[in-house]
């Protein structure tokens, strides 16, 4: 395939999931590595494939996607759009546009995120509006999403990271990510990871979330018994399926699924 004039080409890696699991934090850390370049638009999440639920992906579209990834010799480039794994139409398109890309998935406790979104939506609700959370449970059904992703990509091409493990052992998981991506300097440690703890204390909450990956846990809402029980009924089988697909997933790190 000819390379676009700007030196672009298919991305070397694409983060495909999951929304609200610390992907901005982790992608930011990856971009601190001297061998890893951001997309030309300097946005983490290109959302390039979103619109192809309504139209076919053409060769010109594929070429346009490749233009997002110019890179200097010796570097790699990629993006991370948290909804790609959820959108069922995207994996076959990604396989067409970037068949050799390595895929990154960062997952976190599905119920913790539910609580955070719940609190957020509740706070924005008008008096006469009803609160629906059906879509959030659908989005947090990681087992089903990973299974369909594997129809299009070999499991060896997909690295499943766990947010809670990255928080606990950022350097170890960072190195693991670098090894998976195949960069030369896998011993590199971003400055942000050399001074852990400081950022958490001094940054405003929003910025802190972006940089440290801390979720909105201080705003989570208590759930009553019916809602919580229903949530478990909905998500436990999916987490069990996920565990079968990813045996090294440590569910013990997910407070709601210990």
């Amino acid at each position: 395939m000819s390379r676009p004039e700007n030196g672009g080409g298919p991305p070397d890696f694409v983060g495909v999931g999951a929304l609200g699991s610390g992907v901005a934090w982790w992608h930011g850390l990856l971009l601190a590595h001297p061998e890893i370049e951001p997309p030309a638009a300097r946005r983490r999440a290109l959302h390039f494939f979103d619109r192809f639920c309504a139209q076919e992906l053409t060769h010109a579209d594929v070429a346009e996607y490749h233009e997002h990834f110019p890179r200097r010799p010796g570097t790699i480039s990629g993006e991370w759009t948290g909804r790609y794994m959820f959108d069922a139409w995207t994996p076959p398109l990604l396989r067409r546009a970037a068949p050799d890309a390595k895929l990154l998935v960062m997952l976190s406790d599905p119920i913790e995120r539910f609580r955070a979104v719940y609190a957020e939506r509740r706070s924005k609700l008008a008096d006469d509006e009803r609160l629906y959370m059906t879509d959030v449970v659908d989005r947090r059904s990681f087992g089903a999403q990973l299974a369909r992703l594997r129809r299009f990509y070999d499991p060896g091409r997909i690295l499943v990271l766990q947010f809670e493990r990255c928080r606990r052992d950022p350097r170890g998981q960072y190195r693991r990510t670098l090894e998976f991506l195949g960069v030369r300097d896998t011993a590199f440690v971003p400055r942000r990871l050399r001074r852990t703890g400081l950022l958490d204390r001094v940054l405003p909450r929003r910025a802190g979330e972006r940089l440290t990956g801390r979720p909105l846990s201080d705003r989570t809402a208590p759930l009553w018994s019916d809602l919580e029980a229903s949530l478990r009924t909905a998500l436990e089988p999916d987490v069990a399926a996920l565990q079968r697909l990813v045996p090294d997933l440590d569910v013990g790190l997910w407070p709601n699924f210990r």
Partner: protein
Amino acid sequence: MPAAPATGPPDFIGVGTQRSGTTWWFRTLLGHPQIRAPRGRRKELHYFDQFCGRELTAADVAEYHELFPRKPGQIAGEWTPRYMHDFWTPRLLARAAPEAKLLIMFRDPIERFRSGVPHRLSRTPDARMEAATADAIERGRYATQLRRVLAYHDEAKLLILQYEKCVADPAGQYRRTLEFLGVGTEHRHEELERRRGTTQAAQKKPLWGDLMDGLLAALEPEVAELAAMTQEIDVALWKNFAHLAPENVPA
């Protein structure tokens, strides 16, 4: 003077699925002299939608019961297709109407999808296309939803209907529904052959190869699991999944 109709928990509740002929089937049921619609003759009460945002109280349960008046010898019920997809609702139904019989109508999930996307966009014009599309795919994850229903309801009080069977044999499936509901089965409905609410072919979402690949990856495991969960689904009648029917799977 005749006694005022009594109210109480519904005798039956349709819980799924949207764009699968449930309006046709509910209207057909209402033609039966022993079956009553909820107050206001609405098919879809959406009563439990609100309880993702707050707890269901005893007063709410009583209010729900008030919506179902019926005379002696009659039964009453509603059919809200999203109840099965809303993860919080099956458990609440078991609290509010523990004895109710549940009805589900399933249709080829890709045909349902093709009808569901334009439906969603027409109802909520400001919905983003990708959100409407994702929603229409998720609603087709039938096995996942059925599992949640069965976590709170006994299989014996659940009737699974298949839209394509109802189209092919309306009288037989109507009779089967009446038997399940426990009302007289002799009634013949003059409108039974007349289907309503079908999406015009021109409005259906078109499919192309990549989209079909994505849909099949998401929905084939669900259809296979559904077929393993219930004998009531004949996968051969779903043209997009007929290859999964036992007679078409190579040994």
